[in-house]
């Protein structure tokens, strides 16, 4: 086992260990023990930095199902290293923060188990080279996010938020899977690297554009892009450390990662350029526009995350133009957008993580996140105030914080793209810098709102009464590390550029010869140019707009309430639930007879239909063995029992007659020398009879069904058809020659499986996979019966778990 494989596996193993040893572990130490994992993984990953920066990549393949091209291939390059460092780095800080944030009364083992599950899944996403493995991990992140959002599952809003995020991200995931399968059809491989290497062979294929769109859908839903962003604000029902970790720093970046990863494949297409840039810009604007009107601090941060994700997305779109243009000395400049995207990806994780933790502190110490009730906390919580100021100003794009650098690069990229005349940029391209600029002004406004409304002004009397105080040191450590990074990156951005971003650029643009050429020198001061003027404009207009907020806030009432995206989503969900319910109720009517009719009709149609279609009904009487008298006797017994069964008036009679049928079949097995079958049949028959006897006390007397003559006739016809199908197939299989016989394989059972009984070697060796799954199914069915019966009992007690 190599180290990169272990990195993915360790969080999963730890998650399992937590659940197994939950009772032995003290709750007090649980968080500290868990903390070891991300910290050590982070340290291991940092050792990769210098090697990756030298241009090395690491790949290992574990063959899983090579026949289907399914291999567990890990691949570490610059791009995956950035993400993995964020996952483990922010993960460590978040776990440290949770130790102090979560009360000891919570079910901590579940929390940490889900968190580790997520960590492993996310590492799996960024390290997988195989598309199918990537997809599996991708959905696993959705599942763990679902579990974490619903962590306080006694609250209705948590459950609703969890369901919403699950519905949206998983639907996107399924469409992405379809896109992956199309890529497989085109390229014949699931390996991302091989697809990238052979991209010119597939780009003319008719499935290329559909695959592009489907994969983008997956990325957009995951990264909360417009119009799929609606799940992210609702996901804020999760505990704040989770929001800081999954819903701002890591999971929502998975879509960005995917877009960056697939830029070498699809980047040359006009559709890709406009969709990614356009959706990114709309999201950027819509997110910041909506953030301004929120009153819940966490909701502001949620919309601001949406907006910032849109910013990164649009930068990746802008950068993809370089793939279209191909490498030359003039085109390298357009890769800077991607560079800015990756740079901002890191910056966003630092300042947004700090801001979320700040909100968590306010919520934890004051008990509310509503900005209408907050205010004047600066004097009480000076440290928290510092975090808020640095985080917000960085997000607003002010120096001396890292957000300033990436925001300036963003402006530069939007302006620079106007010089191009591909993809009909010349006609509508001017919108790109314009939307970016307007959205940035709004960003500035809500950043001021966060700081001013929470920390400046007067303390509201009801909060004053609670005697608020600064957070404990433990909760301050993590956000302070993050804001230290915010400042450190501003002063030493090129360190980051050289060691972390440069190799990632090489993975986004594998055809460009030199990564160093694509790594610009980042400097805070670059003369009075257009980007600086834009920033100054943002500050001036932002302050003006903030002052005039109450005058233009009416604009939000223009939008009709029942046409918001949330309302549409609710309507779609309710309608589809109702429609599916009415369809289901039409055939699931609770009548056993009807269900049998469905089963038998499909049996006759499918089985007899196949035999007729393949012309497989053939009967050769000469091949049959001679029929003995006692066999005929048994047949007659069975015929009479079966006819009698139909006319039985009481339950006990029908059960006994059924038993007679079963035992007669067992006799047949004995006669035809199938002792295994006979034994099984006998025991099953006895157990079934016992089961019937036990069930009797729940059933009333056998009542004849009041059915019309037409129903009786049609039921009779179906029964006869089923009987005829079984009989004819029984006669025909002896002469069936469509497939080659496989019995020669089983005849060597002693050499192959070490058993002299063929039946047992089939069950335990040759077809052991079937047996194993049957065992699992049997177990599930048993649990199903158990829960069905006991759940009914629990309901009677009137236990209402809603909103407890």
């Amino acid at each position: 086992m190599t180290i990169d494989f272990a990195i993915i596996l360790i969080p999963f193993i730890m998650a399992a260990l937590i659940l197994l040893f939950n009772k032995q572990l003290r709750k007090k130490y649980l968080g500290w023990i868990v903390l070891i994992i991300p910290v050590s993984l982070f340290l291991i990953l940092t050792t990769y930095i210098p090697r990756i920066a030298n241009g090395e990549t690491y790949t290992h393949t574990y063959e899983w199902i090579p026949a289907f091209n399914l291999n567990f291939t890990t691949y570490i390059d610059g791009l995956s290293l950035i993400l993995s460092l964020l996952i483990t780095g922010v993960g460590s800080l978040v776990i440290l923060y949770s130790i102090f944030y979560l009360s000891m009364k919570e079910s901590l083992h579940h929390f940490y188990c889900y968190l580790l599950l997520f960590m492993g899944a996310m590492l799996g996403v960024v390290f997988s080279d195989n598309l199918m493995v990537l997809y599996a991990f991708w959905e696993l992140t959705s599942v763990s996010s679902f579990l974490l959002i619903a962590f306080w599952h006694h609250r209705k809003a948590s459950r609703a938020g969890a369901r919403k995020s699950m519905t949206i991200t998983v639907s996107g995931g399924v469409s992405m899977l379809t896109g992956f399968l199309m890529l497989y059809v085109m390229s014949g491989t699931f390996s991302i690297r091989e697809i990238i290497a052979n991209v010119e062979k597939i780009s003319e294929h008719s499935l290329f554009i559909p695959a592009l769109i489907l994969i983008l859908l997956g990325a957009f839903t995951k990264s909360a892009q417009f119009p799929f962003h609606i799940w992210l604000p609702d996901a804020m029902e999760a505990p704040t450390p989770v929001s800081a970790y999954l819903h701002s720093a890591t999971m929502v970046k998975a879509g960005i990662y995917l877009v960056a990863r697939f830029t070498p494949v699809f980047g040359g297409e006009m559709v890709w350029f406009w969709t990614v840039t356009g959706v990114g810009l709309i999201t950027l604007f819509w997110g910041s526009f909506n953030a301004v009107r929120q009153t819940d601090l966490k909701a502001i941060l949620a919309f601001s995350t949406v907006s910032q994700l849109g910013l990164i997305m649009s930068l990746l779109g802008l950068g993809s133009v370089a793939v279209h243009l191909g490498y030359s000395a003039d085109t390298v400049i357009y890769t800077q957008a991607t560079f800015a995207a990756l740079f901002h990806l890191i910056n966003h994780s630092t300042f947004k993580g700090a801001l979320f933790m700040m909100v968590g502190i306010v919520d934890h110490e004051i008990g509310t996140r509503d900005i209408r009730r907050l205010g004047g906390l600066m004097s009480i919580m000076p440290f928290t105030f510092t975090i808020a100021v640095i985080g917000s100003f960085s997000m607003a794009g002010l120096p001396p914080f890292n957000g300033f650098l990436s925001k300036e690069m963003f402006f530069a990229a939007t302006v620079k793209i106007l010089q191009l005349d591909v993809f009909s940029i010349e006609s509508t391209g001017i919108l790109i810098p314009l939307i970016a600029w307007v959205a940035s002004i709004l960003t500035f406004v809500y950043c001021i709102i966060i700081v001013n409304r929470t920390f400046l002004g007067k303390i509201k009397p009801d909060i004053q009464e609670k005697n608020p105080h600064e957070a404990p040191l433990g909760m301050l450590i993590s956000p302070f590390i993050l804001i230290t990074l915010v400042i450190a990156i501003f002063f030493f951005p090129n360190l980051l550029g050289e060691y972390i971003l440069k190799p990632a650029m090489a993975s986004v643009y594998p055809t460009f010869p030199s990564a160093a050429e694509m790594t610009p020198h980042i400097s805070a001061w670059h003369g009075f140019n257009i980007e600086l003027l834009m920033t100054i404009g943002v500050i001036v207009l932002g302050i003006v707009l903030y002052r005039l907020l109450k005058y233009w806030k009416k604009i939000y009432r223009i939008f009709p309430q029942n046409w918001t995206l949330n309302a549409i989503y609710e309507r779609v969900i309710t309608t589809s639930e109702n429609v599916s319910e009415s369809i289901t109720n039409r055939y699931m009517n609770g009548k056993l007879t009807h269900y049998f009719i469905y089963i038998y009709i499909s049996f006759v149609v499918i089985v007899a239909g196949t035999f007729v279609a393949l012309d497989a009904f053939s009967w050769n009487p000469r091949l049959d063995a001679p029929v003995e008298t006692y066999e005929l006797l048994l047949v007659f017994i069975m015929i009479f029992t079966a006819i009698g069964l139909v006319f039985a008036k009481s339950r006990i009679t029908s059960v006994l007659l059924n038993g007679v049928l079963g035992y007669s079949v067992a006799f047949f097995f004995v006669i035809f020398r199938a002792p295994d079958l006979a034994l099984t049949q006998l025991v099953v028959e006895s157990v079934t009879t016992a089961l019937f006897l036990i069930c009797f006390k729940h059933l009333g007397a056998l009542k004849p069904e009041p059915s019309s003559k037409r129903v009786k006739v049609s039921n009779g016809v179906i029964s006869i058809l089923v009987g005829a199908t079984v009989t004819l197939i029984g006669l025909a299989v002896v002469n069936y020659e469509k497939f080659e016989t496989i019995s020669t394989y089983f005849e060597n059972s002693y050499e192959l499986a070490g058993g002299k009984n063929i039946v047992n070697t089939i069950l335990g060796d040759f077809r052991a996979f079937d047996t194993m799954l049957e065992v699992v199914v049997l177990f599930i069915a048993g649990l199903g019966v158990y829960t069905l019966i006991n759940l009914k009992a629990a309901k009677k007690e009137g236990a209402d778990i809603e909103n407890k």
Partner: protein
Amino acid sequence: MKINDVILRTVVKGVIFIILTLGVYLFFSGHNAPGGGFIGGLVLGSAIVLLYITYDLETVHKKMPFDFKKVAALGVLLATGTAVGSILFDAPFLSQTDGYFNIPILGEKHLTTVTIFEAGVALTVIGTLVTIILSIGEDE
């Protein structure tokens, strides 16, 4: 409904050992002769069901304080565990192996890993069978 079941009880006391022995015999005779995990498990399970029918639930539960859901779960774990276990020995999923071993007193015996797998099957069958019948029987 109270029936005079002295005869049933007396018969079951003797018969139950025969059935249990048959179940164990069938379980071990599998692979080379008719039998195996499924049939063995069924016979053992039906023996337990017979006990439950003859005596009341409390009496049997006092003598056999198992949670049969857990028995079934253990069975599933054994069956899938042997399947995964073969990977640890660098063999494909679900590989089975066998060999002849010389065991003191018992002499040379043919031992297989299939037996563990079959034990999983048997335990699942017993657990599920008893769980279903008990939950229907206990339901009021």
